[in-house]
């Protein structure tokens, strides 16, 4: 499973509860941060951490000090999130 699939599957899992139309079939440009509230963003962080641990066998902390910073967040869209997670996996 590639990183993009992990992200999309995580978003769709979180969205089972949230039921946000724009998150049903998210694309690279889907604006995650503006669509998710703080709890939704936290849900997505936990979902990503759980799936990444299943696949890599190690805990990778997904939150960083910019997670909920509206200007600097890596959760801006799927593309920014993918780049961020790639770096996180390589550096952890």
């Amino acid at each position, binding site marked *: 499973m590639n990183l993009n699939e992990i992200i999309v599957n995580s978003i769709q899992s979180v969205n089972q509860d949230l039921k946000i139309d724009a998150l049903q079939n998210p694309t690279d440009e889907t604006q995650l941060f503006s669509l998710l509230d703080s709890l939704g*963003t936290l849900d997505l962080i936990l979902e990503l951490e759980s799936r990444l641990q299943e696949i890599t066998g190690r805990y990778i902390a997904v939150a960083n000090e910019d997670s*909920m910073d509206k200007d600097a967040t890596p959760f801006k869209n799927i593309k920014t999130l993918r780049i961020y997670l790639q770096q996180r996996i390589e550096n952890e």
Partner: protein
Amino acid sequence: MSKATFQDIAITAMVTTVGENIIKLEDEKERFGFDDDSLARIQKSIGLKTRYIASLGVCASDLCVQSANTIFDNTDIKKEDIGALIFVTQSPDYKAPSTAIVMQDRLALPNSCMAFDINLGCSGFIYGLFTAFSYVNSGINKILLCVGDVNDYFAGEKDRIFTPLMGDAGSAIVIEKTPSPKSFFSLYSNGGGYKHLIIPSGGARNRTTTKSILPKQQTDGGIRSDENMFMDGKEVFNFAIKTVPPLIKEILQDAGILAKNIDYFVLHQANPYILKTIASRLKVAKEKVPLETGKIYGNQNSASIPGTINGFLSDAFQNKKLTLCIAGFGIGLSWGAAVLQTDNIYAPQTQLYKRRDRV
């Protein structure tokens, strides 16, 4: 810069009283309009299980008076030796006078005891403790510090964003002159973030009107009035993650102590993920960072640090000499930390509120 060092001043007693009604999150499905999915989501992401809520009409001062009386009934600390009573709360009995002054009479403390309130939330224990240490340092022998809130005073009754997180608690802490190693404090504020946690109306800036007290559906999904507490969850998360790790690194550096030599990091119990993230950032063993308080008791505001000590670390505090790092962060925005030692203090298990101490 608000940094201070004190010598031969220490906490000698700490008691926390919580609301007497234990409410499970699932019992509040109807109140907050949660369906099974949203309930499961909150339990998973925030870990909420129960919260302890005081009955309607019980004030934060009632919880604190019970805590203080427990200290006076079970230790050698004498009421006549208390030189100051400081009450940190956002839910005072009255808009005026200071609740602390009313509590001076209820507790039968001497008239020579000065008393005043401090209006702060989650950073309030650190601010209150710093104030108490400062007064002892200036010559007052013993201080009674009370901290706590009852949330129905400011939390929207049906606000599913804020209210389900909160628990009612009131702690009493005695600080006194006694042989003790140095303690270190560091305090900060940033009023630029005042809108991230705020009760917008009901003060002198925005007066109470017929509109300000009406609950209404808000864009974040919560139902609350302008006289209820608003929390911007993303901003508060952002603030905590950015502010607390450097704050703790700084206070450890000031104290000249390594993280591995701290017995417990008792942090304001905002939410477990924030605490886990902070612990991971500081590379601190997770067993040194208790994080269960919010799950069991709810967010206890200014009482959450003593609430964690009495709720989960009572044995250790009553039977050991401990080196602590404590940190509070929240409304204002305001934040602070301290490194200090406790030595076999009186710190019994958290107790439930009993009606006898009410006015």
